[in-house]
């Protein structure tokens, strides 16, 4: 066993133990399992939300985009700040309704607001279909990171099932509380890794971050301003993309439901205020991608830029540390995704769609069983058909974003009807899928999902005005 491997194993096992311990002393019911009994305070909410949001994409994707595309990667810095601004105004409203009506999931909100179980089942299906490819992406990322960090001692096809079992165990026992506790470990490790590499690597090669940018500006000035190395990703693409992603950010079933975990709306607002500070480390990740662009030109896969740079410049044990941080960074979002998908399947598809009389204990038991089913499905795809879900992944974000107009309009516009909301969502998803699958993304320099969002809002408004108002809860 090499030092790197020992570090990876030690951290991953310790994290799992913490996750299991987190739920040991509480009586598990559905509300505790899904939303932590609505008792999370500011600090744990911050870790939980950061844990959900900063995935393996932050590690590999942001540096990979900086490496291969350049300036368009700045959109990641922007959309976070905008999404937290949206959440500052939107999430407290959702929290109040969640508290008043006992909501636990995103479809619960739609069922309650529009008085339609069918709409709830439909929203739940969109949620599960969007979550599965993301879960697979996390598992694939875990495999990639552990294989690279252990220098091939643990191949991806071993790391992925191992991560799968460990994640299942703590989700099964502790629910959302397990995720929140492991998220603390993950956030600390990841920030440490990013700060060390983000400051250290540019310093080693260029004497600092500023001089690194100067060297890049001298060598490839176009890489640092839009559209960078990607002609189709210009200013209008960034503008439409950050608006789309800011709208969609809290429309994922798991981010939406995080509003229900807080103990008060004050906690949510204060959390939204401090979240943008978490964007700053992303600058360091982008800097690592730019450094790799200068010192390691010609990598076949830009997503490997971060790990390759660490392997070339740091001792093996540190590569192990980065691998451990990366593995836990995959496990935390994976756990929340599987928890959410399982609850959607049991509560909003099985119970709401087919067995309205099912008891809460039955739903909890079924949710826990679904943890294994959902993980197994994602595992199967990750191992057997690594590319089968790429199409779904491409429109996952576009898809969940289409819920945004209905949610916002439901809160501010009394005339929005059930038919209007449903027609808008269907239109939005159809337009997004049509454009993406026919390779028309971006279209006219705009993100296809943004065009779909505009069509969605227009259809929702027109259909609402043409149908009689029959809202249940105001």
């Amino acid at each position, binding site marked *: 066993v090499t030092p790197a491997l020992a570090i990876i194993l030690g951290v991953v096992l310790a994290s799992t133990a913490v996750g299991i311990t987190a739920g040991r002393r509480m009586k598990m019911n559905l509300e505790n399992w899904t939303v932590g009994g609505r008792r999370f305070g500011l600090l744990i909410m911050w870790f939980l939300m950061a844990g959900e949001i900063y995935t393996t994409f932050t590690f590999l994707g942001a540096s990979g985009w900086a490496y291969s595309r350049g300036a368009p990667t700045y959109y990641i810095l922007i959309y976070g*700040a*905008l999404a937290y601004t949206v959440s*500052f105004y939107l999430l407290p409203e959702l929290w109040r309704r969640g508290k008043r009506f006992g909501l636990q999931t995103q479809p619960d909100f739609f069922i309650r607001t529009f008085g339609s179980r069918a709409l709830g089942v439909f929203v739940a299906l969109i949620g599960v279909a969007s979550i599965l490819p993301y879960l697979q992406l996390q598992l694939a990322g875990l495999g990639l990171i552990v294989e690279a960090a252990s220098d091939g001692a643990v191949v991806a096809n071993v790391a992925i099932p191992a991560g799968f079992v460990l994640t299942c165990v703590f989700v099964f026992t502790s629910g959302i509380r397990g995720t929140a506790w492991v998220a603390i470990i993950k956030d600390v490790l990841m920030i440490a890794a990013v700060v060390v590499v983000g400051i250290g690597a540019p310093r080693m090669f260029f004497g600092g971050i500023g001089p690194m940018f100067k060297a890049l*500006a001298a060598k490839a000035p176009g890489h*640092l301003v839009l559209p960078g190395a990607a002609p189709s990703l210009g*200013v209008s693409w960034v*503008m439409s993309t950050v608006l789309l992603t800011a709208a969609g950010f809290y429309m994922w079933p798991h981010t939406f439901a995080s509003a229900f975990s807080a103990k008060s709306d004050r906690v949510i607002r*204060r959390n939204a205020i401090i979240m943008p500070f978490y964007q*700053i480390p992303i600058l360091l990740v982008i800097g690592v991608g730019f450094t790799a662009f200068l010192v390691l030109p010609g990598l076949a896969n830009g997503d490997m830029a971060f790990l390759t740079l660490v392997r070339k410049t740091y001792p093996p044990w540190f590569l192990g540390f980065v691998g451990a941080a990366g593995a836990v960074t995959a496990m935390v979002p994976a756990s929340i995704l599987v928890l959410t998908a399982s609850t959607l399947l049991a509560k909003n598809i099985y119970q709401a769609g087919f067995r309205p009389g099912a008891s809460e204990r039955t739903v909890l038991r079924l949710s826990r069983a679904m943890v294994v089913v959902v993980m197994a499905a994602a595992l199967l795809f990750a191992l057997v058909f690594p590319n089968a879900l790429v199409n779904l992944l491409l429109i996952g974000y576009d898809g969940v974003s289409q819920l945004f107009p209905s949610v916002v309009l439901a809160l501010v516009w009394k005339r929005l009807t059930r038919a209007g909301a449903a027609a808008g969502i269907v239109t939005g998803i159809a337009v997004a899928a049509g454009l993406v699958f026919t390779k028309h993304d971006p279209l006219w320099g705009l993100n296809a999902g943004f065009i779909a969002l505009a069509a969605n809002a227009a259809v929702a408004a027109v259909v609402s005005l043409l149908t009689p108002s029959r809202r249940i809860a105001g």
Partner: protein
Amino acid sequence: MRQGKKLSFLLGAVPFLALVAALPFVNRLEPTVFGLPFLLVWILFWVALTPLVLFAADRLGRRRPPDDKDRP
């Protein structure tokens, strides 16, 4: 709607004006700040300022300062 509440909503537009509407005018390399391209400096400045904007919005939007319901 109360004056403070209105202002609180208006403040929410600030990050969108700075980080979306202004982008076509700030997409340039020069002047650099500590070596960083101007576009990136502009984005970082406003991302770092967003918490302050939201903090101000929170103060203005609160019905009755301080709202002590969730404190021990």
